[in-house]
């Protein structure tokens, strides 16, 4: 009996349509959309561990988004996530899910170049630029999630060429990432600079992981990007609390160069991504914890960190199902031997496209980085995302 009820529930939901609201006066268009997602998480802890607090339901997203356009000149976007606003978590901002996600205005009046000002995604890392709703995963790869800030306040210049096959971005930001929302810059007063170029062939390649349109010809996109900051703190000064991130390298007291490379391909429902990031940090002080206790002669005054991930996906329109598998490696410091290796398959069933999707992800730890030890061996997450757009 339950089996029949399940089938009817699925058929009922698949016939649902989705509400969204667009208001227009013929020149000014405003669209109101949003999404919610909830999952259940289960961890298999290491022997001897007994903290099961992550075996839980979690409301991941409760977002409201306002996107508008005024004539051919202005675009704007305001996106908030009520989950993080409601949690009032005293300064700790989840970079993948901050309270304020976008608050920007884009000027298109110059024609050849767009100028974007405000708070929003930094155009660095293809994975970071793919909207979360369009993946079967509940979490991005570590190298695209914990390693660098994904949003900041600043100014971005954007341009595209060759029928949008080539996209160029350049921007300047506070460098404090999501913590820039707390107001002031850090005591160094210095900014971060970022740039990205991506090229696609034979046509423009949207920032999506899944080939849901079943591309009839092989398509490829290659991107390179970099970020640079040189923040020197006066003696006795510190960076704002939490701004340096869990591993202390999102913002460093010294010179930081982050660069990355990504490639994406898709054909007939199959798609794959590869993305690599490398950080070269030159902390000002020899006593900086990022030197892991080594002296200047041993480190030559710098350290490196970085990692990569590769992901394979297949989308079946008939089965309305996405299957993905991801392998990733992360080395949090070249001064400490060892790096993390993880594998993560995921599956998603589309009740109504990406707007209503059941997603399940498995997290498997193959090897741990000594700087990032965990209390769990494997983790499983299943839930539903629903977008009204």
């Amino acid at each position, binding site marked *: *009996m339950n089996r*029949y009820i399940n*089938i009817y529930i699925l*058929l009922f939901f698949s016939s649902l*349509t*989705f509400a*969204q*609201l*667009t*208001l*227009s006066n*013929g*020149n000014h*268009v405003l*669209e109101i*959309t949003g999404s919610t997602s909830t999952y259940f998480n289960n961890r298999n802890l290491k022997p001897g561990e007994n903290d099961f607090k992550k075996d839980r339901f979690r409301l991941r997203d409760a977002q409201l988004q306002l*996107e508008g*356009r005024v*004539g*051919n000149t202005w675009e704007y976007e305001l996106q908030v996530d009520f989950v993080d606003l409601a949690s009032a978590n005293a300064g700790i901002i989840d970079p993948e899910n901050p309270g304020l996600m976008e608050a920007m205005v884009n000027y298109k009046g110059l024609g050849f170049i767009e100028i974007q000002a405000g708070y929003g995604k930094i155009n660095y890392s293809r994975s970071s630029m793919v909207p979360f709703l369009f993946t079967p995963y509940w979490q991005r790869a570590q190298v695209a999630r914990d390693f660098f800030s994904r949003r900041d306040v600043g100014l971005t210049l954007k341009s595209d060429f060759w*029928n*949008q096959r080539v996209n160029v971005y350049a921007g300047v930001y506070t460098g404090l990432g999501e913590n820039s929302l707390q107001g002031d810059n850090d005591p160094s007063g210095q900014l971060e600079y970022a740039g990205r170029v991506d090229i696609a062939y*034979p*046509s*423009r390649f949207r920032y999506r992981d899944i080939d*849901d*349109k*079943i*591309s*009839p*010809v092989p*398509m490829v996109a290659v991107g390179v990007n970099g970020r640079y900051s040189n923040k020197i703190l006066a003696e006795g000064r510190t960076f704002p609390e939490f701004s340096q991130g869990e591993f202390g390298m999102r913002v460093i007291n010294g010179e930081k160069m982050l660069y990355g490379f990504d490639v994406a391909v898709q054909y007939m429902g199959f798609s794959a991504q590869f993305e690599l990031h490398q950080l070269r940090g030159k902390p000002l002080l020899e006593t900086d914890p990022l030197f892991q206790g080594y002296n200047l002669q041993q480190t030559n005054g710098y350290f490196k960190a970085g990692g990569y991930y590769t992901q394979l996906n297949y989308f079946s*329109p*008939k089965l309305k199902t996405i299957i993905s598998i991801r392998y990733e490696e992360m080395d949090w410091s070249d001064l400490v031997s060892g790096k993390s290796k993880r594998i993560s398959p995921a599956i998603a069933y589309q009740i*109504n*496209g990406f*707007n209503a999707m059941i997603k399940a992800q498995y997290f498997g730890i193959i090897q741990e980085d000594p700087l990032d030890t965990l209390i769990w061996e494997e983790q499983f997450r299943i839930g539903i995302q629903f977008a009204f*757009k």
Partner: protein
Amino acid sequence: MQMKKITAILLLSLFIGFAQKPKTLKPFNSICVEVKEPSDICINPHNKESFFVVSDNGFLHEMDANGKILRTSSFVGLDFEAITIFNGKIIAVEEMARKLNVFDINTFEVERSVVIPYGGGRNKGYEAITYNPVSKKIILITEKDPSWVLELDENLTVTNQFQLQIARDISAITFYKDNLWILSDEDRTIFKCDPQNYKVLESWKIPVVNPEGIVFNQKGELLILSDDRQKLYFFNLEN
């Protein structure tokens, strides 16, 4: 028992739905077009060697059979997504603004604009338009979530609307030889439909990236316009 029968019928229907595979159509030729981000196409009734093409960035062009732009309207819309000819005038549709602009064919000037409000997603608005001489109605279709068919009278007033559930999205429509020809971008499929009841009579898969426009030229060849590739593909339905 009754439950089992209903379930069996539903599952059988689903299976039949999957089993009706469309044929695949291959282009015999393609040309690059000068129009950037082309989004729909229709034939010039006064000179069947040329076409009217609209673009995502709000331009209306006349284009020759080799893809070269012959002239461009001074009027710039927000984002044109659909175009047709009705009563000797061009109707170009702005998707986001929900606006139908009526152009004079000769002067390329806007004579009249009509806003037809629609609350769906701003990029899921009006995507396809054509005149259906069988029902004597202008057909306007929204892209997806869901695809609504709006039937308009000659004054561009909505007289009827209903959902069309033949594809994941609809990107263009045209009328040719007693049938409606509907194009889906996401499914890369052409549907030949009954102009009375929109029932699908036949369908073809096409190997074209981002197909956004459909038209038949004077030789009876089927032309599909690709936005992303900025190309016009030629198909022969006879073979």
